[in-house]
């Protein structure tokens, strides 16, 4: 039988562990060697000349956009008017022909 073992769990415990000699003396240094360099903030810098060039580019693109859209709008209007005129003319020509001329009209036009 072994001797009685008494442990007071409420009393401060004695630390049974040790560390290698000088371990704590160099600890901070060793840890910091393994800490990666911090990310440097990304600085965004633009020279006034670059700002001017960028503004010119934007203005150019914008002008081109406006020009293209205006032109296409005019073309669309023209086509629409021409179509309307043609349709009106066609209706009219069809309406004025007599019954006897229908076959001739169809032969000539279709």
């Amino acid at each position, binding site marked *: 039988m*072994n001797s009685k073992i008494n*442990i007071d769990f409420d009393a401060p*415990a004695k*630390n*049974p562990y040790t560390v290698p000699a000088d371990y704590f003396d160099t600890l*901070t240094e060793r*840890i910091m060697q*393994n800490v990666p360099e911090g990310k440097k903030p990304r600085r965004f810098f633009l020279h006034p000349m670059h700002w001017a060039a960028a503004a010119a580019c934007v203005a150019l693109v914008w002008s081109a956009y406006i020009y293209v859209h205006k032109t296409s709008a005019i073309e669309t209007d023209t086509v629409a008017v021409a179509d309307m005129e043609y349709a009106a003319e066609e209706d009219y020509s069809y309406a004025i022909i007599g019954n006897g001329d229908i076959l001739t009209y169809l032969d000539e036009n279709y």
Partner: protein
Amino acid sequence: MQQYDEKEMVEHLMNEKTRRRAFEQMVNHFSRRLYWQIRHVVVIHEDADDVLQNTFIKAWKSLDTFKGEAKLSTWLYRIAYNESITLLNKRRNELSLDADDEDDDGREAAYLQLESDPYFDGDETQRLLEEAVCRLPDKQRAVFKMKYYDEMKYEEISEVTGTTTGALKASYHLAVEKITKFLKAYEQ
């Protein structure tokens, strides 16, 4: 020795220009206590050293997530505790693969590692105590060590582990019962 001011330290840590210097001061201030907290949980010196390094590297990488709601020490202890439990799980898995007895969970093998640790200087009673503690589940072991060796209050342990103080008290008393039972069995 430079006076530690938590508020000032946090301000410097949040500032990109002073961050690294402040972090070094923080390491210098907390590393010793953190080491012992980790060592008491993971037992082996080399493991404690690895976990300590990982703790500070993780802290450095996640400094931006530190909101200042908890104390800096609590935040660091929480990282250290999680890293310690992760290492214990890893070690147990490694040892369980080698152990024939699956019920043992490799805990006894963890104690055998301690026997060969040159940095353990305890007497026979402390060796038996460590053997008993190594048989506890990981989290219960950590709670016991934080209370018994690090003399942390239940409220502090609660902040670190995220467990209620009631559950911690129950866990600690259960751990004491298991250890006492183990020691009584040894006496006979």
